């Protein structure tokens, strides 16, 4: 009895929805502001990460110029030289601002007050030990109230002393052997060198941007469809559509189309911004990106329709989509690697289509993956689309004529 989908009317419905957005200048403003805000926030939260480079001796840091204090208890020549080197490297590489404190207790008090992030103690007997041909020890206390900063400070201090230690070893070996053997051979007979997966990645943000793009497009259209359908239901205009002789699928598809366009606009805004502000580069085909995003949207939009069909009003529908969408941000491997989650959470994360969309998009953008390479992801998304849509359309139909 129902006619097949009437595309011109579907397009009309989609066009009207977009016109609605276009004419509400305030809504449009926030529509554009959202991805900008999201991007800037996360972009600056994940700053450029340089890795330690043993050849050049650069350490690199995400937390530059942290305040630390040096407590020098040994007045020997070697101790003074090491302290001077530590201060110099810290300043040169912008790692620490180093102050000097007379006693450990005084430094500890400052750390407790929050004025210091770490204390380096050169204990008595440091110079004597070195002079006697024994290894010497430096002691370190870090502000353990913040585990992240603590581990960064700890490892950076160790890295600096590694550099200092290496140059001492080099000198010692040269003194002992007169340059017959390479000092590096004695110190590091085996070294590890990385070959970058892609060259020129300046920022870990390169890995985050595709995830955010998928997240925005998919959750945007999920929430958008639920909101658009329930808003019309509440306003009463839905009656005007339902009472006319058009197939109900046209109404759904029109809404989905409009929200997908909106989602894609936001997604590409995010991509554009990450390229402009954070140097993200696209290595893959924009066409495949587009396909992945479309599939990602299609895979989940049915859930939005199901929620509208179940929810009695717009507010409830919105609440329901929020509850779905919020955990999805954290367990679909967008912000944190999925391997970091406990097993059961990984299972849930991998049961959600966002994981596959983000995964595929990341492979395309960063690794220049072909459609064939991401086929498993694509197939899963297609299955998802099929399952959710076959559940959603009849449910919507019956909900509308309940």
């Amino acid at each position, binding site marked *: 009895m129902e006619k097949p989908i009437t595309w011109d009317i579907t397009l*009309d419905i989609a066009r009207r929805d977009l016109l609605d957005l276009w004419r509400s200048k305030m809504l449009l403003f926030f529509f554009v502001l959202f991805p900008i805000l999201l991007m800037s926030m996360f972009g600056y939260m994940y700053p450029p990460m340089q890795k330690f480079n043993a050849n050049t001796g650069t350490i690199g840091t995400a937390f530059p110029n942290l305040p630390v204090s040096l407590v020098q208890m040994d007045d020997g020549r070697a101790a003074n030289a090491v302290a001077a080197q530590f201060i110099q490297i810290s300043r040169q590489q912008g790692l620490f601002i180093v102050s000097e404190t007379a006693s450990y207790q005084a430094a500890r008090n400052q750390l407790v007050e929050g004025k210091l992030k770490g204390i380096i103690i050169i204990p008595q007997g440091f110079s004597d030990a070195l002079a006697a041909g024994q290894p010497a020890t430096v002691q370190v206390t870090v502000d353990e109230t913040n585990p992240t900063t603590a581990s960064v400070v700890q490892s950076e201090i160790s890295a600096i002393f590694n550099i200092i230690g290496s140059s001492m070893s080099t000198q010692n070996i040269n003194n002992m052997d007169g340059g017959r053997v390479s000092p590096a051979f004695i110190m590091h007979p085996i070294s590890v060198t990385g070959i970058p997966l892609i060259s020129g990645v300046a920022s870990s943000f390169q890995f985050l941007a595709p995830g955010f793009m998928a997240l925005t497009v998919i959750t945007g259209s999920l929430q958008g469809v639920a909101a658009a359908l329930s808003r019309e239901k509440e306003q009463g205009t839905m009656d005007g559509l339902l009472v*006319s002789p058009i197939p109900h699928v046209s109404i759904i598809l029109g809404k989905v189309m409009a929200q997908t366009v909106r989602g894609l606009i936001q997604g590409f805004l995010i991509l554009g911004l990450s390229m402009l502000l954070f140097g993200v580069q696209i290595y893959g085909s924009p066409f495949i990106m587009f396909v992945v995003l479309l599939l990602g949207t299609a895979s989940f939009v049915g859930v939005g329709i199901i929620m509208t069909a179940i929810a009695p009003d717009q507010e409830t529908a919105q609440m329901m989509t929020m509850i779905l969408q919020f955990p999805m941000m954290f367990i679909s491997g967008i912000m944190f690697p999925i391997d970091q989650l406990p097993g059961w959470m990984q299972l849930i994360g991998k049961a959600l289509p966002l994981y596959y969309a983000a995964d595929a998009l990341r492979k395309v953008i960063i690794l220049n993956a072909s459609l064939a390479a991401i086929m498993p992801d694509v197939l899963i998304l297609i299955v998802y689309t099929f399952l959710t849509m076959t559940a959603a359309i009849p449910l919507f139909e019956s909900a509308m004529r*309940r």
Partner: protein
Amino acid sequence: MMALRRDGTTSTISGYAIETHGLTKSFNSFTAVDHVDLTVHKGEIYGFLGPNGAGKTTAIRILCTLLLPTSGTATVDGYDVVHQANEVRKRIGLVSEKLIMYPRLTALENLTFFGKLYRIDRNTLQKKSEELLEMIKLTPFKDKLVGGFSSGMKQRINVIRAILHDPDILFLDEPTTGLDPQSTRFVRDLVKELKQRGHTIVLTTHIMEEADELSDRVCIIDHGRIMAVDTPQALKDRYNTNSLLDVFLELTGRELRDSANERISMRAPMGRM
């Protein structure tokens, strides 16, 4: 008996615009429409009256194919509202309690949008829209956003939105609620004008003078059941009064009707009773 129509569809032959038999709609344990048998003649204005919650809107929504009946049958223009919903939809227009208008579209854009749903060709639609806008004296506002209109203006355009496709049967659910006296007068005259043009009209209202003035026949419904159907004059004669309000109160009682079915108001915001 079935008849083959010119457009190739088959429908029940009946002299009535609307006919229902044992029409019933229950929401869980609550029966909103209870075995209603009614007939609406072609070309008449049928006043559908009843206290809040009597079942008027539910009945109208079933006739408009927006709700499925729990049991019983209903035909509109000879077509079954359940099995031939699409044929019914082509032949009806609906003015419901809530405006069917997009606030961020202009008057003309709204008419065009809804007109296209009925596959009216572009030129006819344009001509028809302009003509109807002229009739409701809103031509100067045709390119203004409907969101900025007064309630009266919105309702006038809402009414012509419902008749763009020349429906045989027009459902007007409280079309004058919340309007000022001028707009009320205008809408009532519009209803008479539409009858002149040959539309069958089902009208609900809580204003008894309005029902008296406009209706050829009125149907008073309460608790989902029909209490009386006749011409306003015959009803007044029967109860020996000159006011339809007295008839109404005589039939439906004077106490206030406060009832709430929580489950329904939560689950079916569209299916108002």
